[in-house]
């Protein structure tokens, strides 16, 4: 299960970073910015806010080519968000410019130039800061080299996808990645280590196994034993369940009903959480045996409780994700499966119900339209009859968009970060190993 996670990959100072400034103390970290453009603007804007508070921010249009299909508007959108980050005295230039025009830019105010381009499956935002001209322009290039140049990278979301060709929600391949573990109860997929390469975490009853998923290939990299992470629960569930997700802070939060508490893995460090299961997307839950309580609680005492959107009835499967609209607004969407097999999806303002869904759930925006997709297995006890089904929550209906039979049975599933040109991969744990729908 995976939230639509902003992924900061790099901040590069081309010139001396002396001009760059640290975030103000007490300010929320940029990882709390959930949209791609918001996150990039936060990271870039904060770095120059001290000297660029009254800057004019100009978006540099990306070069249009088949390889870089980004529309120019993305630069303006990024410029607006950077200007908002800089403060009330900053302003954004309403048109995407080219570099030749910038040479003639005349203003006593500092100039911030931002660009956006696709790099692999991520959006790279770059910022150049130009101090105000000391003397009036007399023609030619009056601006010197930028005093600060930096860049940041994030995964794609629906707001960025407005500036990209649409993608189809279709499965081109269903292939096995690895033999996999025999007892996987939860999967998570995301950029766990900041390299931009998705990591698949397979949470089994005995081990947590990590592998990279790059260019369609899975490579196992490490594993941890469950017994070193958490003690056995005094009263587990007879049929175990687990949840896991990779958080915006690049931790793996995981929990199993077999274990006394959930765990947060940050690199090699394991932190015991104050609840039994993480709820992907934010918050944690405890058990209301033999089901899961629908009331979200805080995962640790020093973090805010994420109670909304709430569900009312006890659950036996959970999913959640932050979904970014095409306008860049973030909303936490949660899904839970009731004991009857019905799956309830809610964003707090609205709720929708699938009469019967399997016990493996994930939420993500698979087609980049800003509306959530619910990914489920089927409500069957016969593995041969199982399938992965994708529904789009559009208005007041759940539309089935994709169905892939999985005769080995789906034991766990997760959605990986979105690539630029196609649907995100859905990884599955089955009795025959780790598979991917892409």
């Amino acid at each position, binding site marked *: 299960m995976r939230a639509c996670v902003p992924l900061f990959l790099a901040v590069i100072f081309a010139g001396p970073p002396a001009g760059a400034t640290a975030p103000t103390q007490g300010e929320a970290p940029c990882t709390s910015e959930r949209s791609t453009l918001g996150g990039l603007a936060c990271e870039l804007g904060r770095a120059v806010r001290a000297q660029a508070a009254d800057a004019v921010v100009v978006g540099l249009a990306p070069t249009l080519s088949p390889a870089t299909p980004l529309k120019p508007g993305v630069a303006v959108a990024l410029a607006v968000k950077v200007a908002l980050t800089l403060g009330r005295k900053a302003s954004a230039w309403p048109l995407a410019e080219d570099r030749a025009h910038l040479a003639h830019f005349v203003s006593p105010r500092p100039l911030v130039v931002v660009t956006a381009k696709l790099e692999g499956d991520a959006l790279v935002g770059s910022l150049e800061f130009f101090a105000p001209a000391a003397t009036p322009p007399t023609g030619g290039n009056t601006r010197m080299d930028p005093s600060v140049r930096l860049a940041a990278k994030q995964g794609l979301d629906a707001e960025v996808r407005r500036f990209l060709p649409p993608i189809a929600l279709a499965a081109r391949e269903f292939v096995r990645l690895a033999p996999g573990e025999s007892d996987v109860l939860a999967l998570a997929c995301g950029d766990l280590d900041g390299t931009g390469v998705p990591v698949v975490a397979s949470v089994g009853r005995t081990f947590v196994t990590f592998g990279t998923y790059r260019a369609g290939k899975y490579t196992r990299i490490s594993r941890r034993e469950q017994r070193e992470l958490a003690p056995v629960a*005094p009263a587990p569930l*007879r049929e175990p369940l687990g949840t896991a997700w990779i958080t915006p802070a690049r931790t793996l939060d995981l929990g199993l009903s077999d274990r006394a508490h959930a765990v947060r893995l940050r690199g090699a460090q394991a932190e015991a959480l104050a609840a039994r299961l993480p709820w992907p997307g934010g918050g944690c839950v405890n058990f209301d045996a033999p089901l899961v309580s629908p009331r979200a609680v805080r995962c640790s005492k020093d973090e805010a409780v994420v109670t909304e959107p709430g569900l009312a009835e006890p659950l036996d499967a959970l999913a959640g994700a932050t979904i970014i609209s095409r306008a860049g607004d973030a909303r936490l969407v949660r899904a839970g499966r009731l004991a009857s097999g019905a799956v309830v999806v809610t964003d707090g303002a609205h709720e929708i119900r699938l009469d019967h869904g399997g016990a493996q759930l994930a939420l993500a925006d698979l087609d980049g339209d800003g509306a959530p997709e619910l990914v489920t297995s089927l409500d069957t006890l016969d593995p041969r009859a199982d399938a992965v089904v994708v529904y789009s929550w559009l208005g007041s209906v759940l539309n089935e968009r994709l169905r892939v039979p999985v005769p080995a049975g789906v034991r766990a599933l997760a959605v990986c970060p979105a690539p630029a040109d196609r649907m995100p991969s859905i990884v599955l744990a089955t009795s025959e190993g780790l598979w991917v729908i892409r």
Partner: protein
Amino acid sequence: MLERARALGRTPLGGTLRLSLPFAAGPLDPHSADDPLSALIAPALADPLYVLDAEKNPHPSLAAALPEQLANGARVSLRAGLVSARGRALDGKDLLWSLARARERGGVAVLAELPKPLKDPGDALSVFFPSADAKSVAVALASPVTALVPRTFDPQAPDGTGAFRATLSANGAVLERNQNAARGPAFLSRIELALGGDLAEALRAFESERADVGWLGAGLYRARAGAVSFEAPSIGWVVLRTGHDAGHWSAPGIAAQLLERVPRGPLAPLGLMSAPPSAQNGAAWGGGNVELVAPATAPQLIEVANQIAAAFSVGGQRVSVRALSSAEIAERRRSNRYALMLDFVRALGPPGRSTLLALLAAANPALAARPPNASSYDAADIARTLPLGVLGTLRVAGARAPDVRGIETWQLGNVYRVAP
């Protein structure tokens, strides 16, 4: 915990299972090795510390880990936080008490070879087996007759860490989901157990849809519509003991030879599964007019006893069946004051060495402390050197209502209904 389907859908929760069994209502004791009702029901109420996988390798269940092998013995530690169905916190003292209690009852079969455990002064959750091998300790503590119970345990109000909590009554028992279950609460909310009837009543109850499981069949007069046959692992053996009052006929091996002449055909409907007799090697009863005593608490065994008595009543001799209470049977067994006794011996684990230990302890608990090397673990072969003969295994089989699932293993915690 359930090893079957994970994911897909999930096992449905809730619902009630109604069982009508041909056994008298009575105490449920996980440490008993001679009570078929306890063998059937007690594993749902109390758990052993370890479980064996298909390869007979032990894995921790109530234990925190496999036994720790030390230079001078083996240490066993309980999982932290265990609480019984009636809310009693369990620690090393409960474990010592449980093992001592088991050793005085059916658990002696698997515990006799081990030294008595001691309290671990350094850890309230641990006990120590001096000079013991860790693997042997784990295997012994995987037997259901060594289950952990609280020090306040009373078989009339049984308590443990199992999937259910039992409340006994004069004509049955109600098993309710144990929210503290150490291996997970049951899928079913409740099992209603009707006891006291005979085999015919058990079948009639299923046929008339007053029960959800047909004991040894799908109905008394006709098969219930939609009934699905099942066969679960056997819970033990029906044995014929020869005692002091049989005189020379109580010698080891005689009982086994006598049983060779008992026709097997009439026994099959009574739930006994046994190899065909070999008439050439059998012996006819020649001990005169005697009683064949059998437990009144198991009408099924009384019916089996009647078949045996008929087979033994040859040559002017009369063997008559006498049903005795559990206490009388236990006293006769202890004092050896009987001629013939039909009895039940509980299986203590998967077939193999545990078969040998179970039958040795049934014959004489002291034998289980020094078991011989056996060339065969076949129950009938083992019994040829003992004053008891194995008539067959007691089947757990019959038919289930179509919406009852998971009963094939007779692990009641794993049973569920698809339409509760």
